[in-house]
C-alpha cells in the first residue's frame, strides 16, 4: 500500500523485483541506482550470503520528481531467488505496491521462471492479494545470450494476460529503466484511480 504523508508531502511506494535465482533482479536495482541523479540516489543495502547471493533482500530507495507537490519515493526490493529461501521471499512481498517479474530468458531456466511465477501468485494469495489487482510488469532478461527461449514462447507461458513486458540485458543496462518506469507509472496511476474512485481508506495503521 502506498504510504502518503500529508505533512511531509511524501508518497512512498514499495516495488518488489521477483524472479528465479540468478535472473538479474539485483543487477536491475544496481543499474537503476547508478543512473539516478546523485541527490535522488539512496543507499543500496544488500543482505547477502557469504557467496554474494541474496539472503533476505536487496533494498534501495529511489526518489523521482514531485507529483502535485508531493515527493515520490520508490522503495525497491529484490527477493532471494534460490528455491529454499521461500519463507523470506514471501516476507518481502508484504505490503507490495507493484511487482517486476524478472524472467531469465535462457532455455534451461524456462521451468524455473514458471515455478517462480506460480509461487509468487500463491504467496500473494495468502496475503489476500490477486496479482491482477497489482501493477505488474515482466522483464525478459539476458536476451543477449545465445540459448534463449523465443519471446513468443515466454509471452505464452509467463504473460498470458498481456501485462507490460520488456526485453532486457540488465548487465548492460538495456531495458532496465523502461521496466522500472512502467511499474512506477502503474503504481502512481493506480494511486490516482483509487483515490478518484471514492474516499481513501482510513490510515490503516491501527488495524
Amino acid at each position: 500500500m502506498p504510504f502518503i504523508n500529508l505533512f511531509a508531502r511524501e508518497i512512498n511506494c514499495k516495488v518488489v523485483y521477483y524472479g528465479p535465482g540468478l535472473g538479474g533482479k539485483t543487477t536491475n536495482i544496481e543499474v537503476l541506482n547508478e543512473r539516478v541523479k546523485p541527490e535522488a540516489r539512496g543507499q543500496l543495502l544488500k543482505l547477502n550470503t557469504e557467496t554474494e547471493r541474496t539472503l533476505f533482500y536487496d533494498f534501495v530507495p529511489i526518489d523521482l520528481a514531485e507529483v502535485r507537490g508531493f515527493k515520490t519515493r520508490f522503495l525497491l526490493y529484490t527477493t532471494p531467488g534460490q528455491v529454499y529461501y521461500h519463507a523470506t521471499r514471501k516476507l518481502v512481498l508484504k505490503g507490495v505496491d507493484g511487482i517486476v517479474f524478472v524472467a531469465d530468458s535462457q532455455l534451461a531456466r524456462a521451468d524455473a521462471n514458471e515455478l517462480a511465477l506460480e509461487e509468487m501468485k500463491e504467496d500473494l494469495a495468502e496475503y489476500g492479494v490477486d496479482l491482477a489487482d497489482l501493477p505488474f510488469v515482466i522483464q525478459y532478461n539476458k536476451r543477449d545470450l545465445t540459448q534463449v527461449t523465443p519471446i513468443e514462447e515466454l509471452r505464452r507461458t509467463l504473460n498470458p494476460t498481456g501485462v507490460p513486458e520488456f526485453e532486457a540485458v540488465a548487465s548492460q543496462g538495456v531495458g532496465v529503466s523502461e521496466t522500472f518506469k512502467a511499474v512506477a507509472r502503474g503504481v502512481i496511476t493506480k494511486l490516482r484511480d483509487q483515490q478518484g474512485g471514492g474516499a481513501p481508506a482510513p490510515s490503516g495503521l491501527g488495524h
Partner: protein
Amino acid sequence: MFHSTTVLGEDDYQRLKASIDGLVRSANARVVFLVDKAGQLIAAGGAVSDLDTTSLASLTAGNIAATGGIAKLLRENEFATQYHEGKDAHVHIQVVKNRVILVVIFDARSSLGLVRLRVRKTAEELTAIFDDMNARPPSVRDAANFTEITDEDIDNLFND
C-alpha cells in the same frame, strides 16, 4: 487492507511526532522512530540527521517479519519485543497493535529498564492515536490531491 493506500493526515502526523519526541526526552534516547510492517518510515525523532532512517526502517520491518516467521513456526503469535545490545548503541523494538513498530536507539545515558518503562507508556499513547484515526471517516480533502494527477504529471516523474 494490504493493498489499499495509507494516508497520514497532517494532524495525525503531528500527534504521532509529539508522542515520539516525548519518548526521546523521557527515555533519554538517541533516536526514536515508528515504522509500518511493510518497512515505510512513519515518523522519527531525536538525532536522526546522522542516520540512514530509510534503511533502518526497512531493516527493522525485515527483522520483525523474520522473527514473526519464527514465531509462527513455534506457534507463537509474535515476538512483540526485541532488544539488541551493542557496545555503545542499543536498540529496543516494540510492535504496537500488531501493526506498527516502535524503535528506540539509546546509549549509556539511558538504560534498558528506563526505555522499557517509557516505551510501555508511549505504546499506549500510540494505540490511542491509531484507534482514534481509524474511528474517523477518511477526509475527502486528503484524497483531493491525487485525483488531479494527470498522465503528464506521471511522465514528468522521470525527468532526468
